């Protein structure tokens, strides 16, 4: 474009060329960054697993029904979160708060199930330096990937608790619920990748 054309074109400017607030955009970019962090871990897992011969068969180590139940709980919490965001958008704070509490409950159930899964895994001999099923990196990646994800769930639950408590105090904004919801959906989506790549493949 010639410089006169650049000078003539007249964009209105203003606060939000993409039609979203900067808070929401920042959450999106943060999610991209965080997703790449998980991508780094999952790719590392893939590289090491391919380089290692004796990778255990997951269905012999884990109860896949149990893991699928965990997945179901987390996906359900995503659904209640979506209902909460919609209720907030429609201007019904009490209803939104109810759904956020339900989501928090789902998060806690997931964390509890994960804690039990870890205790069984450790009880059966899975340790940070080795395990009875095959390559030591198997249990190492188990701890670091599910642990890192569990840490994210815990963070998400904390954020949702803040949102719920603020809503109870009347300091409530639909945009805040939506941003927290975005993060929660992201955490759930990551779990789908962890479930597929670590437990199923």
């Amino acid at each position, binding site marked *: 474009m010639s410089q006169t054309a650049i000078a003539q074109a007249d964009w209105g400017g203003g606060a939000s060329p993409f039609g979203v607030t900067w808070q929401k955009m920042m959450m999106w970019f*943060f999610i991209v*960054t965080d997703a790449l962090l998980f991508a780094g871990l999952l790719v590392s897992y893939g590289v090491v697993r391919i380089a*290692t011969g004796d990778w255990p068969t997951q269905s012999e180590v884990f109860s896949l029904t149990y893991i699928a139940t965990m997945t179901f709980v987390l996906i359900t919490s995503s659904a209640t979160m979506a209902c909460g965001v919609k209720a907030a958008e429609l201007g019904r704070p009490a209803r939104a708060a109810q759904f956020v509490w339900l989501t928090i409950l789902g998060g806690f159930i997931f964390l509890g199930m994960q804690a039990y899964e870890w205790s069984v895994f450790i009880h059966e001999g899975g340790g940070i330096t080795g395990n009875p099923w095959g390559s030591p*990196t198997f249990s190492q990646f188990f701890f670091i990937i599910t642990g890192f994800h569990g840490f994210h769930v815990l963070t998400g639950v904390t954020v949702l608790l803040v949102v719920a408590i603020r809503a109870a105090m009347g300091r409530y904004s639909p945009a805040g619920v939506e941003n927290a919801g975005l993060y929660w959906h992201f955490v759930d989506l990551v779990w789908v990748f962890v479930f597929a790549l670590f437990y199923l493949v």
Partner: protein
Amino acid sequence: MEHEKQGFVSKYVFSYDHKMIGKQYFTLAMSMGFIGGILAVLIRLQLGFPSKPWPFLENLFPVGMASGIMTPEFYVSLFTMHGTIMVFFLLSLLPVSGFGNFLIPLQIGARDMAFPFLNMLSFWTVVPGAIIIIISFFVEGGAAASGWTAYPPLSAIRSAIPGSDLGQTLWLVGMIFFVASFTMGGLNFVVTILNLRTKGLRMMRMPLTTWAQFVVGILGLLSFPALAAGALLLTFDRSLGTSFFLPAGIFIGDTLMPHEGGTPLLWQHLFWFLGHPEVYIIMLPAMGFTSDILATFCRRPIFGYRSMVYAIGAIGTLSFLVWGHHMFVSGMSPFLGSLFVVTTLAIAIPSAVKAFNWLFTIARARIQFTSASLFGLGVVSLFVTGGLTGIFLGTNATDIQLHDTYFVVGHFHFIMAGAGLFGAFGAVYYWYPKMFGRMLSERLGKIHFWITFVAYYAVFFPMHYLGVSGMMRRIYDPNVYEYLQPLQPVNLFITISAFVLFAGQLIFIYNYFASMRTGAPATANPWNAAGLEWSAPAHPGHGNWEGEIPPAHRWPYDYSEPGKKRDFTPQWEA
């Protein structure tokens, strides 16, 4: 005094003002750069005068310089920390965090960054990182000693070498602080540039500096997670005995390590997936500064603005596809290596677009030779020199010969370190009036430029010959090899030039701090520049503009338009 009441702490320490945060980054980065420079001088001291005793240095480093003679372990720590400090804490912090914070709101017409609190937090997150990095010199075993790339197993096994112990742990902790800070900064940069532009400032009217900072923000957000993931795994390997990066059969001394199942190549991939974009995180702002500076002092519109923007985007995109060229000798499949050669050489195209656009901007212009424009021209010179040597290293056939020799050291000190540093110097000379409301001494600035420019070539150009002659990159004493002994005069020459280079920077530091009080008072637009930032008062307060934010009516490069009385039309004039 009718000013908004602000205590010392809220104004100078925990400030929310993007300009003060930018200046805080300057102070931190310059201090770290000074320390990094001292480390470089110590490295050259050993290479110029191998194993000569310097008794006075024993007081400072009683272990590393016992009886004044540098130990090999200390030498290894020196180049590790020199690289880490310079790459992350000077060349990333000064142009990106420093100038990004200072310039973005001024150049796009915003009162502040999108999230001022996060901005303040990002600075105070990197400070502990910097302190931890410095402290690591004084702990048991000394600072990290596995190179700035921290390759396992040296970095993963605590008992490998003295620096692998506490020093390496502190290195990792410091880097985690740095990554956290840089991520917060990147989020702020990208969102601010997208959402807070003033009326009329379309993306294609932004100054190239802001374009560069925008792409740098995205590069940081996409590349640092890989390092963070690697650092997490490495921390586990070090502290909990996992084997992510450690295969079976590693002996330390006579002890067989219990690790098995991992691969050290994984770290190299994760590291260079960050490491190569990091090079452009350093380079792109310097390219942006150079474009703005050259346009102003050549009184010419920047040549090929649109192609410059596309080149920045292309360089940013390609930077994610070339990391393997750092690993040609790692045993990768030759087929994969060839792919990386193709993507690497493809980067030469947008890079050449930029170099030629600068040349066409300069060509037949009546250049005003200020300190800023001299450093801008210096960037073009260093960029071309470093770019040409990059072709040898980006091609695997020649790289296998030149890998890990001084050729590499010469190359990246030109293209990344040198061009990045000269760009930052040019930017300081150019925007100083806006930072402190005073002018830097032009006389000292020109002396600083010529010493730096000549000494820079004197230090790093001969390194290419050393490399071709076979001198390896991280060697403690080249004279242990008979065939390297004839090169000692060259090493001595480089060492003396390095001392001159370091001394030249003291002029700059003096100029920077003395001019804050004694410099000539600056007007709001001392260079008659057209960019939006020059519409703000000479020393803008928090909020930048006293009245309304000026709208952008045009791009920032309207210089020497035919038929106009003035030779420039400011961006904020209709």
